[in-house]
């Protein structure tokens, strides 16, 4: 490698091309956003229906569905790990980001199992959804995720003023706006670049 002939502009060009490459690789990773997005969306809307419409007292049990998401994520990660040749810097950062988010959701679940699931915690969950997508958008330089994250934060603040039932519904809306829509946009963009 002839480093001496390599100007900063050229270096940045290489980094940009690597970013582009990673963004295309994300096409394979968008499955995480879509899977978790739809799973959480289903959990939120189901909990709302079970509580509000069917008056089922153990409406929160629907969240056990997320264990399916955990199992599927592990399987997909192992599968993709075998196929991938190189681990880029952005791959690593995304890994740390979502490991951190995963641990945070786990810690939050532990806290809630102690203090009770009937507490108005959805604004806090929505805030975390926003945090994850906003940083992902910054890492990938993909604006729809950044915008989605900001909208999720606005929904989080707004939901503070609502009843618990409608906070659940806000969670569904937030996940739809910040995960599902941007993930489909990312997939469409990656497809159009191929």
């Amino acid at each position, binding site marked *: 490698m002839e480093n001496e002939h390599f100007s900063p502009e050229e270096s940045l060009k290489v980094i940009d091309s690597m970013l582009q490459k990673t963004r295309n690789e994300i096409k394979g990773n968008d499955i995480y956003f879509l899977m978790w997005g739809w799973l959480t969306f289903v959990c939120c809307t189901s909990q709302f229906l079970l509580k509000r419409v069917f008056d089922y007292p153990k409406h929160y049990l629907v969240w056990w569905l997320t264990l399916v998401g955990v199992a599927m994520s592990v399987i997909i990660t192992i599968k993709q790990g075998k196929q991938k040749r190189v681990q*880029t*810097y952005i791959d690593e950062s995304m890994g740390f980001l979502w490991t*951190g988010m995963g641990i945070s959701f786990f810690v939050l679940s532990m806290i809630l199992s102690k203090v009770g699931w009937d507490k108005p915690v959805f604004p806090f969950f929505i805030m975390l959804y926003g945090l994850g997508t906003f940083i992902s958008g910054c890492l990938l330089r993909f604006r729809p995720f950044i915008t989605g994250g900001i909208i999720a934060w606005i929904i989080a603040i707004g939901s503070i003023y609502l009843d618990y039932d409608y906070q659940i519904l806000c969670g569904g809306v937030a996940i739809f706006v910040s995960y599902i829509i941007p993930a489909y946009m990312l997939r469409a963009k990656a497809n159009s670049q191929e």
Partner: protein
Amino acid sequence: MKEENFSETDSLKLINEMISKVKRSYVTKGIASMVWGVLIITCSLLTWAEVRYNWDPGFDVWLLVFLALIPQIFFSIKEKRSRKFTAHDETTTTYVWSAFAISIFILSFYNSKFGSEQATTLFMMLYGIPTFITGGMFKFKPMIVGGLICWALSVVSVFTPVDADMLLMAGSGLFAWLIPGIILWNRYQKQRRENV
């Protein structure tokens, strides 16, 4: 530039070099980390004294946190002026900590509405996120460990009284920011001595 000789491995090598270059400049930020660490520890211990000994300082001690913004803004502007370029991960770090600041604001807002008894627990959980991510992005282990400790202390605080929570919060500030900040500062000083 001989692009035809530039393989994917070469690109990755170059990116790694760029990362280590940024890593060297990032050490200067040990100051910000130390300032935050000292402030969080001080505010936590003062709150602990308030709760434990019914001591009244006459003002909300957490307002002191705003003091940290002054050196933070000062050093950011100073560094921005002296730098020729901003690397991708530096920009991302700025976004990570901006996202953290927004989250702290939302959580404070949430607590003001619900007066949550678990406020300290939630704050510590939140402290862990940017610390862990930053540590991971820069491959800086003390911050990764600091983030994990924040989460562990957050879980412990669910089972402890409010005054003890404040001591745990001080522990978060110590492990997430003060200790990593001191390590970064020492590395920076060592590097400066080597460059002289």
